[in-house]
């Protein structure tokens, strides 16, 4: 029999509504799973079993008092939270030693939304320090392992978010995506990962990495769950000035209204040639080509397009993201919270030692780079130039979207790599995000979904991108593909 922890949110919802399972049973199943696999997976930084079970008990009481048929989609379901989401009273570290003991006095907007929707928080998930990384190896709290092969990384920066869902340690998780941090780990662990349009989901109460690029989104086992999670997270927030006040469609209904027969008939899917480059893993390339064939069979017209500035995305990103980060991370000074050097000799000593002891080497490297590109004499040459190239990259997409509904690309040039394989060479690591980064620069919504397995059993993902605020479109295309294939039903065996 399939274990509860292997199910999807929409499957659990059916069980809850028909009283075949209770929230306490579901939550207990998750914690049993955590006890059995977490020592090997290391997805969590903090577990909150006691409060989660208490939440589940309350959820069950509410279900029996109001009637199971009325409950919201996430009601009574354990959802893991990436550790850069502020949670009132629950330690929040952003994967960093500098916040090792930080207990937030408030919930971020999205955490509050999930709690209001009845979700249960089993704990806080491991991540690259301040979301800076592609493999989750920069975390102060160890590296989560890929449930499909424990010797490999689960991707980053939302590595814990991916590993936990893939290992059955929660049913969905929150992530943040600045240059691919949701989509890459989702692709490497056979999950659906959604990066919504910039401004679609509130960033209030999420520890910032690069403010103009960061976006919150979910990691789930399939597209339907992705739609359910996005529904819960999306919406305007007056506390976030970059959150956009535009209506949120009903994503789940959007999936249900797709025709069964030739669901993508009339759809124009763009395949940018710059995303199929030499050096790309042959199995990834093959899986993507096969996916294109599947989409064609579903009625879509797939055509090659060009995004000519693609190769400039990574350098543009590393200027803009590090510049913003160098300023965003100035508040970690050991004064109001966080790590402080004991007995500092002076104020400057307090700043320098607290920050140097508190931050890990990747974070320091990026702060240094960001500080440099903003400094006097270099600002125009680096920062302003990068902002201009950002315009070119954005315009590339605008042009393609004039004639196409969605864009299809691979997510990662390779499947999950071995722990330590790229850790010594920052530039090599930065290039892991080559297919995802430009989406953030353009502020577009994109998702990653399973589209194959390597011979050695490692998941492969593909990326679907749509126009600003048209998450519904990419979800529909992904759903149509998912219904025609079985990749998302595969679970890692631990």
């Amino acid at each position: 029999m399939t274990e509860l922890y292997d199910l999807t949110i929409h499957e659990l919802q059916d069980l809850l509504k028909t009283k075949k399972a209770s929230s306490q049973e579901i939550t207990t199943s998750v914690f049993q799973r955590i006890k059995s696999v977490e020592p090997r997976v290391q997805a969590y930084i903090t577990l909150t079993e006691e409060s989660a079970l208490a939440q589940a008990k309350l959820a069950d009481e509410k279900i029996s008092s109001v009637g199971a048929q009325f409950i919201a989609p996430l009601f009574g379901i354990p959802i893991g939270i990436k550790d850069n989401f502020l949670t009132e009273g629950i330690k929040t570290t952003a994967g960093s030693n500098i916040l090792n003991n930080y207990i937030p006095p408030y919930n971020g907007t999205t955490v509050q939304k999930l709690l209001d929707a009845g979700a249960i928080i089993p704990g806080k998930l491991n991540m690259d320090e301040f979301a800076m990384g592609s493999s989750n190896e920069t975390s102060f709290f160890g590296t989560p392992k890929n449930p499909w092969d424990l010797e490999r990384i689960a991707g980053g920066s939302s590595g814990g978010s991916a590993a936990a869902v893939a290992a059955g340690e929660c049913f969905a998780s929150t992530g943040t995506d600045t240059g691919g941090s949701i989509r890459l780990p989702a692709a490497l662990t056979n999950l659906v990962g959604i990066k919504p349009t910039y401004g679609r989901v509130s960033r209030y109460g999420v520890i910032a990495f690069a403010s103009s690029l960061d976006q919150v989104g979910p990691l789930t086992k399939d597209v339907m769950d992705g739609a359910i999670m996005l529904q819960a997270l999306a919406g305007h927030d007056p506390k976030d000035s970059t959150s956009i006040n535009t209506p949120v469609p009903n994503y789940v209904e959007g999936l249900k209204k797709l025709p069964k027969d030739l669901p993508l008939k009339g759809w124009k899917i763009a395949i940018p040639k710059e995303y199929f480059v030499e050096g790309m893993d042959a199995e990834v390339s093959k899986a993507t080509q096969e996916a294109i064939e599947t989409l064609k069979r579903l009625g879509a017209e797939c055509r090659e397009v060009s995004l000519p500035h693609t190769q400039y995305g990574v350098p543009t990103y590393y200027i803009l993201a590090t510049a913003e980060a160098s300023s965003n991370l100035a508040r970690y000074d050991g004064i109001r919270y966080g790590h402080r050097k004991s007995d500092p000799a002076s104020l400057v000593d307090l700043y320098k030692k607290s920050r140097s002891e508190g931050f890990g080497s990747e974070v320091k490297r990026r702060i240094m780079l960001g500080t440099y590109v903003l400094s006097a004499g270099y600002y125009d040459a680096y920062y302003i130039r990068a902002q201009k190239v950002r315009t070119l990259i954005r315009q590339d997409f605008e042009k393609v979207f004039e004639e196409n509904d969605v864009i299809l690309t691979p997510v990662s040039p390779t499947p999950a790599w071995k722990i330590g394989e790229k850790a010594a060479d920052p530039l090599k690591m930065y290039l892991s995000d080559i297919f995802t980064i430009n989406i953030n620069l353009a502020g577009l919504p994109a998702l990653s979904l399973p589209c194959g397995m390597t011979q050695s059993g490692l998941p492969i993902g593909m990326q679907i991108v749509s126009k600003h605020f048209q998450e519904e479109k990419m979800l529909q295309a992904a759903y149509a593909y998912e219904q025609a294939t079985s990749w998302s039903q595969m679970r890692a065996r631990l």
Partner: protein
Amino acid sequence: MSLTKEQVLKIADLARLDLSEAEVEKYGSQLSSILKYVETLNQLDVSSIEPTAHAVSVATPFREDVAVQDETLEKSLRNAPDQEVPFFKVPKVL
């Protein structure tokens, strides 16, 4: 471009980071190679291009001017490495 040791130290000072000799060496060479890579952007003529600060361009929203008393100070002070209620404390600033 290649960063000198003095440049690395100056950046570290601006960023309030204390680097060991080995780190100065390591970051110096890593940042230099990243900067070299980043300079591929110089291949593009961007003289007539407007910079993009945000991908979605709208006006910053307003908040009405109404004062609200927040109640979380006590919890916030508890996170401070050194405090003396209701103050945060730092070493003597001269």
